[in-house]
């Protein structure tokens, strides 16, 4: 017997209903939903500022309405970090939804303790430097700064505890992504917290699952000639069938499009990985360089031999800070003398903005050098050039003024120039700077609260 973990969300906005065929088909024992990219919490903070009862992902209401009734009926727990900045309010919403649907006996767990925004000054006072992991820079006095969010990456322990307490749905905030998937394995198999190889196996399974479509042919060069493009909207989502030893098979929901092959597994294995021999998580340091991959039938890849070692001493925190706003404008010019017209456009813009506090200004030519920069050779006399202008300022008004001034040159512009209408009408976008740091484990205490119907 294996324990089967389904993965039905890899980002905020993913199609979570792909959990349904896994559940109703009897293919999984638990389903995990990973909703939080590095940036997602800053997006959710906007919602929470507008309404203190929000701050969780909207996908959660789809999960509550459409998936929970099916999973609860079959005693398949659901685990999600889609609680974002407000797991307790999210749990309350799920409880209300479930009650309206007539479910009873549902136990919902909300896990908190990751949100450090209000605690930053206290942590600094307690000796936590919160220096930037990438640059080494020390964090200035936190009480004087405009931070948007500050969340520590929790591990699998509180989720495993809630599962062992019989929770049917577990809603967390920031948890290290693969730990969402490790947690049910610990709860099910009772793996020791020092059985590093097994913990690392669970982490590798989680890492392969956490980006849903990306291990079944999505965003895959290896699948470019192996799948039909019309398959993409229907790609199956992945399932890991894990043995008590930690060895597991990656597969997908049967009878749905997609591809699980040695190639798709290798692609996802190294996705967003730095040192593959030291993949750091709150629960274990996993080693990807000892594992063995083996084809195990159609759309099945067996992963064995994962090793691990002691987890890192400290936990990672991501602190987000508002750094201003950015704006995009797209222009097109054509033959004759397209490059001269581009120079005119740039000079016109520079002159219009001379007295504006524009902070960064960047030009690229779509289809010519926007992806590969200096690798691309620009044609000498092109028939057309699409110019993308990106500019930033500390406030939105500057960007709006800048846009208005350029647009007011509509009839006094380089000859034959056109403007992308959708860029004229769009709003400035917030720039959120991320500050990765470390914090002592002794400062962090996850808490679990339960709601029942």
């Amino acid at each position, binding site marked *: 017997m294996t324990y089967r973990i389904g993965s039905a969300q890899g980002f905020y906005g993913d199609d979570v209903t792909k959990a349904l065929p896994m559940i109703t088909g009897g293919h999984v024992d638990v389903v995990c939903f990973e909703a939080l990219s590095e940036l997602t919490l800053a997006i959710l903070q906007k919602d929470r500022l507008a309404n203190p009862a929000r701050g969780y992902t909207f996908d959660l209401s789809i999960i509550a309405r459409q998936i929970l009734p099916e999973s609860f009926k079959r005693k398949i727990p659901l685990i999600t970090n889609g609680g974002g900045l407000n797991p307790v309010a999210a749990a309350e919403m799920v409880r209300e939804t479930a009650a309206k649907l007539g479910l009873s006996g549902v136990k919902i767990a909300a896990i908190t303790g990751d949100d450090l925004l209000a605690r930053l000054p206290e942590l600094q006072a307690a000796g936590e430097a919160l220096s930037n992991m990438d640059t080494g820079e020390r964090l200035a006095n936190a009480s004087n700064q405009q931070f948007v969010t500050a969340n520590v990456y929790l591990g699998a322990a509180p989720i495993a505890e809630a599962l062992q307490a019989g929770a049917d749905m577990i809603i967390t905030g920031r948890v290290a992504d693969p730990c969402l998937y490790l947690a049910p394995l610990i709860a099910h198999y009772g793996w020791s917290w020092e059985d590093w190889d097994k913990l690392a196996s669970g982490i590798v399974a989680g890492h392969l699952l956490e980006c849903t479509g990306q291990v079944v042919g999505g965003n895959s*060069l290896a699948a470019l000639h192996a799948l039909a493009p019309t398959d993409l909207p229907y790609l199956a989502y992945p399932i890991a069938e894990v043995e008590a030893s930690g060895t597991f098979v990656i597969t997908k929901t049967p009878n749905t499009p997609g591809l699980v092959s040695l190639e798709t597994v*290798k*692609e996802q294995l*190294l996705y*967003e990985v730095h040192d593959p021999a030291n993949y750091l998580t709150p629960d274990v340091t996993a080693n990807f360089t000892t594992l063995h991959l083996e084809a195990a039938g159609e759309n099945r890849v067996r992963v064995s031999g994962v090793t691990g070692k002691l987890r890192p001493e400290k936990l990672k925190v991501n602190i987000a800070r508002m*750094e201003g706003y*950015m704006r995009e404008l797209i222009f097109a010019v054509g033959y004759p003398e397209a490059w001269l017209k581009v120079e005119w456009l740039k000079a016109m813009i520079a002159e219009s903005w001379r007295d504006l506090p524009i902070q960064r200004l960047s030009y*690229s030519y779509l289809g010519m050098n926007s992806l590969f920069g200096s*690798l691309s050779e620009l044609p000498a006399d092109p028939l057309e050039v699409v110019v993308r202008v990106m500019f930033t300022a500390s406030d939105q008004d500057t960007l709006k003024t800048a846009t208005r001034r350029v647009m007011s040159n509509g009839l006094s512009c380089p000859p034959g120039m056109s403007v992308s209408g959708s860029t004229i009408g769009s709003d400035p976008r917030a720039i*959120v700077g991320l500050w990765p740091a470390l914090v002592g484990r002794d400062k962090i205490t996850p808490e679990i609260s339960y709601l029942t119907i």
Partner: protein
Amino acid sequence: MPRTLYDLAYGRAGDKGNIANISVIARTPEAYQDLKAHLTVERVKAHLGDLAPGRVLRYELDNIEALNFVLYDALDGGATRSLRIDALGKGLTGALLCMEWD
């Protein structure tokens, strides 16, 4: 057409803050030996030019016949700050795989 790295390998790029990684996964055992011997950090950095302005590290995975390159300061400040159309650096795989290879 000259041969490119894409003839020998495929891969995927990912982002973490302002750091990008590009995996280069060999299509055959022979290709892996070739890549391991000749796809050096220096060569990658020289090829990518201003796409790899910072430190570049290379990791070897003999078990899956792949190399992993980690590029510091390669994402224009990171996905949330970047002014590039490819703010997540998802296209960086192609930037590396278009390298001519003989």
